[in-house]
């Protein structure tokens, strides 16, 4: 695992949905080190702490990568104020990422702002992929076309039913998991969703890996603030999302 701290030029900025931004950043060295499921730690103006943002796509040929984030706090708000031609100070790529060397069929599950990182997995992975993407409502739906371009089947759910199937991703998962045999489920989204996904996967004896979130400090595993409880056998301990994760085997996570 290797990472750098460098400037990354903003070559494209796009607002995918109200307050949800997609930025294309150029830094060949960083891209050459990146893999699906990793994140970058971005300096936000005068803020003390960087903001961890998942990598949404990697284009090694052109040395560019995409990030998608929701401008909900002061840091991400500052980020969304930067434009094409500006630079971000980026530390990364960080974290372990997903194992993309898979045999058999893969099911990707994303919820809300947990959807973007799964696109990167879908693109990197060679095995056939299906995706279940959950959003609050129609106007929050993002990246549908992108997923359709790299997945066999893309199912979309919205909490209010204003688009796709009404309900939670897990409702759909239970059905699909019966019909279709998957060798692994990869998921990213809110903790309650990930927990529910993990349960269903376990019930159906499907291997499951989830990408977790926690407030971060250094991002590289030095400060130990982004702790999450994991178990190895019967021993519980605090692992760290930034270095041991963000991707964990769902069975090792203590929910």
């Amino acid at each position, binding site marked *: 695992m290797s990472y750098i701290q460098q400037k990354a030029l903003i070559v494209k900025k796009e607002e995918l949905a109200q307050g949800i931004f997609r930025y294309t950043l150029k830094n060949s060295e960083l891209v050459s080190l990146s893999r699906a499921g990793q994140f970058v730690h971005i300096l936000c103006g005068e803020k003390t702490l960087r903001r961890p943002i998942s990598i949404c796509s990697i284009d090694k040929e052109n040395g560019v990568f995409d990030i998608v984030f929701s401008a909900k706090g002061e840091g991400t708000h500052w980020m969304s104020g930067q434009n094409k031609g500006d630079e971000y100070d980026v530390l990364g790529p960080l974290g372990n990422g997903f194992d993309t060397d898979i045999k058999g069929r893969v099911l990707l599950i994303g919820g809300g702002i947990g959807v973007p990182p799964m696109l990167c997995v879908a693109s990197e992975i060679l095995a056939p992929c299906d995706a279940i993407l959950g959003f609050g409502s129609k106007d929050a739906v993002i990246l549908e076309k992108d997923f359709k371009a790299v997945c066999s089947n893309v199912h979309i759910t919205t909490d209010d039913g204003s688009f796709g199937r009404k309900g939670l991703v897990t409702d759909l998962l239970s059905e699909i998991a019966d019909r279709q045999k998957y060798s692994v489920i990869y998921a990213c989204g809110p903790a309650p969703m990930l927990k529910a996904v993990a349960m269903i996967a376990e019930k159906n004896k499907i291997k499951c890996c989830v990408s977790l979130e926690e407030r971060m400090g250094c991002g590289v595993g*030095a400060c130990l603030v982004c702790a999450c409880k994991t178990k190895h056998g019967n021993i519980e301990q605090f692992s760290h999302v930034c270095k041991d994760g963000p991707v964990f085997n769902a069975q090792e996570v203590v929910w």
Partner: protein
Amino acid sequence: MADMRVCIADVYMKNPVITASGTFGFGREYNEIYPIGCLGGISCKGTTLNEKSGNEPPRIIETHSGMLNSVGLQNPGVDHFLKEDLPWLKSQDVAVILNVAGSTVEEYCKIAQKVSDSDIDIIELNISCPNVKEGGVAFGTSANSVESITQQVKMHTKKPVMVKLSPNVTDIAEMARAAQSGGADAISLINTITGMRIDINTKRPFLKNNIGGLSGRAVFPVALRMVWQAANAVSVPVVGMGGIATAQDAIEMMLAGASAVQVGTANFTDAYAPVKIIQGIEKYLDDNGVCDVNDIVGQVKIW
């Protein structure tokens, strides 16, 4: 080119910039970004006698020009440090300061004894951690306990002892004097200032530990004042820290009386902060025709 070498508690360092305990692990993670051998020293993650799992998350919340943390001394224990981390650290050619914490005086003494014949350079006695129920800051807020724990640890080790003081006290000079009369070879300050933030939507403190330690640029003026007061109170070297993010901050600390500085939270904002601070101090010395960094220590001209 000015001479940047300093000597703290008979330990020579390439330069006066040390990375602060708890922000730099045991150096490995940042060595991926730049060779940590360029640093004057590394104060390792607070280490206890046995492995410690630390506090429940969330352990961090950002504040204006700073952050609160409540890690609670999570660490693999001193034996693991000696076996797994120390050999590698020494091979990086950097002064190794072991930040030591415990919940009883005996624990502090046992660790001091364990490392007495090791390759570490200095013991940093952490009697100021605000995030553990017992021990930690409890030892650091009364002059008597500061003096006695320093005394007892000194009796159990051949290593020089640097006492890390808490800013959560009425009279920092008194604590500095107590550490010195206890036999401290040096003192370092400040540890974090105890603070709190509350989420008004959930009505819950942002930190699971309810309170945490404030660090970052916000605390710099308080740290500088305390370093100045401490340096005027003792004759042993003072290592200044607390919100240092730039060479200017580091120079202010040295002018106030710090023989060396520690850089902590700034590592999170800019991984290269310590490197830039070293370069910035060199430039300041050259620009001002100072040939030895030690010549600016304590040179503040009080009104």
